[in-house]
Structures are given as structure tokens and as C-alpha cells.
């Protein structure tokens, strides 16, 4: 869909712009990732509010994670999460075999070192979404071979 193209371009431009300004300034890569993640957090919070306006109440944590994997991911990235694993003790691993933000980059190991920059926003998106559903979490991502990637969600007991 046309909207997707706009969002993909905006996202890659955001990543490039932030890292470009970091190079000219103090050059702290970690700070850029934090900025991207916090942007994703804000967007995730807003998005999940509008999205779950009319849905039924969630039964439990697993239900919420399944919602993120199916409905939320489909709306944002036009496909579902391919694999959800959990240890039933608060750790969930979401695997996407063809992550939309990485498909244009490479199909294998090329540019692997740049991949984490493009995942920071999405980590924030998940964390923001969960936060407004009442779940405090830490979300990290790892890529071993593009465009597949895994998001690890660690639920924090309050």
C-alpha cells in the first residue's frame, strides 16, 4: 500500500538523519538508538490506544502477546509474526522471518552491523504498545541473517 512506502522511507530517513547528526556532534551511537527507541515508544503508545478502542478485554499476558503478534503486527507491517515462543515466566521471543524494514536492505549477512539501527524504533513500538496495555517490559532485538529477526520481550513485574 502506498502508505507503507511513505512510512518505510520516513523511517530509513530518520535513522540516517539521526546517525548523521551524531557523527558531526559528539558521536555517541548509543544515544541515537535510545532516541529512536523512545520515538518508537511514543508512537507505540498512541497507536495501541487507537487500535484497541473497540476490542474486547484481554484475558491475560499471553493473550496480549498474541494480539501483538497477530493483529498489531498485521496492521503495522502487513504480516503476522511467524513464531512466538515463551518460557511462561515472562520472556517472549517474537520471530519475524521477513521483517518489512529489513527486506530492502539485504538477504543474508551483508550489512548485518547496520541492522540494529533499523530495529530500535520497532523495539520501542512494541514496548510502548505493551506499556499502554499495562505491561512494563524491556524489548531487545537480534538479527543473525537478514531479513529474519527476533524481538525478545522481558516482562517486568511491578
Amino acid at each position, binding site marked *: *500500500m*502506498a502508505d507503507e*512506502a511513505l512510512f518505510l*522511507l520516513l523511517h530509513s530517513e530518520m535513522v540516517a*538523519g539521526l546517525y548523521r547528526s551524531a557523527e558531526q556532534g559528539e558521536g555517541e551511537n548509543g544515544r541515537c538508538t535510545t532516541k529512536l527507541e523512545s520515538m518508537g515508544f511514543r*508512537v507505540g503508545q*498512541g*497507536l495501541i490506544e*487507537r487500535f484497541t478502542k473497540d476490542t474486547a478485554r484481554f484475558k491475560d499476558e499471553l493473550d496480549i502477546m498474541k494480539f501483538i503478534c497477530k493483529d498489531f503486527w498485521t496492521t*503495522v507491517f502487513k504480516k503476522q509474526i511467524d513464531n512466538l515462543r515463551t518460557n511462561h515466566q515472562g520472556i517472549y521471543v517474537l520471530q519475524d522471518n521477513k521483517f518489512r524494514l529489513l527486506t530492502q536492505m539485504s538477504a543474508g549477512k551483508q550489512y548485518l552491523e547496520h541492522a540494529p539501527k533499523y530495529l530500535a524504533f520497532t523495539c520501542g513500538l512494541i514496548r510502548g504498545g505493551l506499556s499502554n496495555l499495562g505491561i512494563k517490559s524491556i524489548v531487545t532485538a537480534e538479527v543473525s541473517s537478514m531479513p529474519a529477526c527476533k524481538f525478545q520481550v522481558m516482562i517486568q513485574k511491578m
Partner: protein
Amino acid sequence: MSRSPGRKQENHKISRELFVLTYGALVAQLCKDYEKDEDVNACLDRMGYSIGIRLIDDFLARSAVKKCRSYSETADIIAQVAFKMYLGVTPSVSCNSAAGNEFSLILDKNPLVDFVEELPAERASLCYCNLLCGVIRGALEMVHLAAEVTFLQDRLKGDAVTEIGITFLRKPEDRKHRR
């Protein structure tokens, strides 16, 4: 066209909201990073330019428009096809100059500011949607049309409508050496 089921419409709306919310977060972040409004505006314009030079490929592939034969046709295509495709709104076009190279796109509904009530007091000269100017400028440059694109009126600053001005810059020695 038959009416799509409710869910699909909603999903489509949410896709667009993703873009709008992301844009808002970006502007907020830029406001934190830069003190002066002019810097933020310049940064947004630059980012828009980079997006525009890529977006034009996507646009031409999706829309398959024929070659435009005049500036006014170009302005019409931007308003009626491009804006409709990417933002879902159709601004109205008006020609501002007798020479036929200055146009205005008048938006009475700007989806980018859906969630913005007003600009904060200390950011009075921020052009919130400056990305759009950069996008149009970049896209036009890739089809070999140099133009200056600015905001003439902005609803967020108190004007009645949002107006984008496109001024095509004529290149005098343009088509002389075609063999």
C-alpha cells in the same frame, strides 16, 4: 465500489496514523535536539528532500502517469494523484502568476496535523509540515523540474487554510541541444 468491511477501513486508517504519529515523534525529537526553529525547519526540509527523491520512483511505478506537458498539469498531478495516493487528501490548485510557473496547493484538511492542537508558544515559527515541501522539491528535481516549495499559509499558525506554494524555476537553456 463496494464498501469494505469495517475492519479493513480501520486498518487502513491505522496505517496512516502510524505515519502521522511517527512524524509527530520525529518533530518532537528534532525540537529537543535543535534550539532554533530555523534549524528544525531546515532539517525537516532536508529529510523531506531525501524522501522525495526516492518517493518519486514509487509514485511513478504506482500511478503510471503520462509525461506532463505543462507546469499546470504537473501541479494538478501532484495535487490530485500524489497527495491522494499518499495522504488521502486532494488539495485544490490555483495558479498565482501570469507567467504560469507559480502555483498554490490549498489544503483544508492536513492529515499530518491530525493530532496536533497548536504549536507551543516558544516554537512559533516552526513549520510543522516542512517535510512535505522537501518531498515535493526532491520529487520534482528527479524529473528534472527545479522548483522552490514553501508554506505560504499555515493553519497551525493561525491562518485560515494551509497553503503550499510551488514556484517552478525556468531553466533558460533547457531544451536547446536535443539531437
